[in-house]
């Protein structure tokens, strides 16, 4: 579904990502893990089209989307649940979700909304609350829901579990497993390596902008030293 080749991101003189390549197969969950500052967010932001001057080649289902601006990429099926959630704070939950589906015909909004509320029933109760008044867990649900409103083929999630209570972490992971079963391809960035490896098919370990390990999640799970060796020392 997604193929990234030789991605390089620079911010001025800092090279945050130095030529990484990765793949997300159709209907797969791929985990991208690594310590703070490893370049995970830069990678995910480049795939969404937010990093100006990112180099490399990004293809979605065989189609080259490297040159497209973010608002064209979302039409092609790339949706992001970014780090820090970045909800539209002054807007209600309903309005946030509605904005998620901005690039799709209005007629489909009701059906998409129903699907999101089905995924996160708790949001139905908060539908008219302003996003800034929600709890962290609810905000993360809106963030994922907002992305789902755009009918993505590839969902990018940055720091899925960061700052969430364990109960909400489980809720969010159940939701993405369900989305996977429905055929969605998902790239999830996590510092919570254990949790991510439980649900992922494949994993990539990033350190200082380079890929230092890749393989199936099962391999990583069976031999935790693989990943601990790389990020255990630098993780806090």
């Amino acid at each position: 579904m997604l193929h990234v080749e030789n991605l390089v991101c620079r911010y001025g003189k800092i090279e945050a990502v130095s030529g990484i390549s990765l793949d997300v197969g159709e209907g797969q969950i791929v985990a991208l893990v690594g310590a703070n500052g490893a370049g995970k967010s830069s990678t995910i932001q480049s795939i969404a089209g937010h990093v100006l001057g990112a180099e490399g080649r990004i293809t979605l289902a065989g189609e080259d989307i490297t040159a497209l601006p973010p608002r064209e990429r979302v039409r092609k099926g790339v949706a992001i649940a970014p780090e820090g959630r970045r909800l539209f704070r002054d807007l209600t939950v309903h309005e946030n979700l509605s904005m998620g589906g901005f690039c799709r015909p209005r007629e489909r909004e009701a059906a998409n909304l129903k699907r999101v509320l089905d995924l996160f029933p708790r949001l139905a109760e908060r539908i008219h609350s302003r996003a800034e008044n929600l709890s962290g867990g609810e905000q993360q649900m809106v963030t994922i829901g907002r992305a789902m409103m755009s009918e993505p083929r590839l969902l990018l999630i940055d720091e899925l579990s960061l700052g969430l209570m364990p109960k909400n972490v489980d809720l969010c992971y159940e939701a993405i497993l369900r989305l996977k079963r429905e055929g969605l391809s998902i790239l999830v960035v996590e510092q919570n390596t254990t949790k991510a490896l439980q649900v992922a098919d494949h994993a990539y370990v990033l350190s200082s902008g380079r890929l230092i390990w890749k393989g199936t999640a099962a391999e990583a799970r069976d031999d935790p030293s693989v990943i601990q060796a790389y990020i255990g020392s630098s993780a806090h």
Partner: protein
Amino acid sequence: MKLIWELALQGLLNGCIYALIAVGLVMVYGLLRVLHIAHAGLFTLGAYVSLVVTNATGSLALALACSVITVGLSGIAIYRFCYEPILSRPPYVVLIVSIGLFIMMEEIFRIVFGPYGLSYLKPPLQERFTILGTGITAAELSVVLITIVLFATLDAFNRFTRIGIASRATVSDPQMASSFGVDIRLIRDMTFFIGSAFAAVAGTMVGVLNNLVEPTMGSVPSYKALAIIVLGGMGSIRGALASALFLGLIEAFGTTYLGTLLDRDAIAFTVLLVVLMLRPAGLTGKKT
């Protein structure tokens, strides 16, 4: 008692005019974090277009339509040609450009229309009514009604239309808005058009109320509107509406009861200072 009603009416009128002007500034500030001083020049342009067209055709309605469209498009042109190319610079660069633009517009009005101001050949909306024992002209009544209708429409637009919600989303987080398919440039064009159109209406109505349109008529509103958006908590349309009405009323009553001490503008800015000392985030702003 009669005096109080008259002052309240006067305050309400001024407040409406201030609100119509300030809303454009608020919208532009929310979107770009830029103080759009040249907005006051658009207000004057609106007054001139309406006066010239009315004097030529005899129809104020037609004139208002021409004014709204001309000024709306001029607003977009200012954004596209003067602000957009320098948006990546520090905000004061845009501010200086905007002030320069405002001065230039005043000079252009002086050259084109003459320094002494123009009047309506047949002043429109002069019919008189009596409401609650107070005399009111059709022009004054129109100002109040137009303001109510325009603000209600704007509010509904922002809350119930997809593009209106998208413009609020863009104010909140432009990058995420564009990430979900919103065309940021279109939103900016639209914002400048709507804000400028409101200023055109304000300029037209001030021209009609005073039966005078002069090159410098934008200068007092320019700094008064700034005071209003600061009072209203920057970037909030409702806040601006509330503080515009508040300031209008304060000025009307203040001029009568304190007129010997301070003039109208001094009263307005004294209140601004006092309010900001008590509530730094503005009248309606959240305490942080």
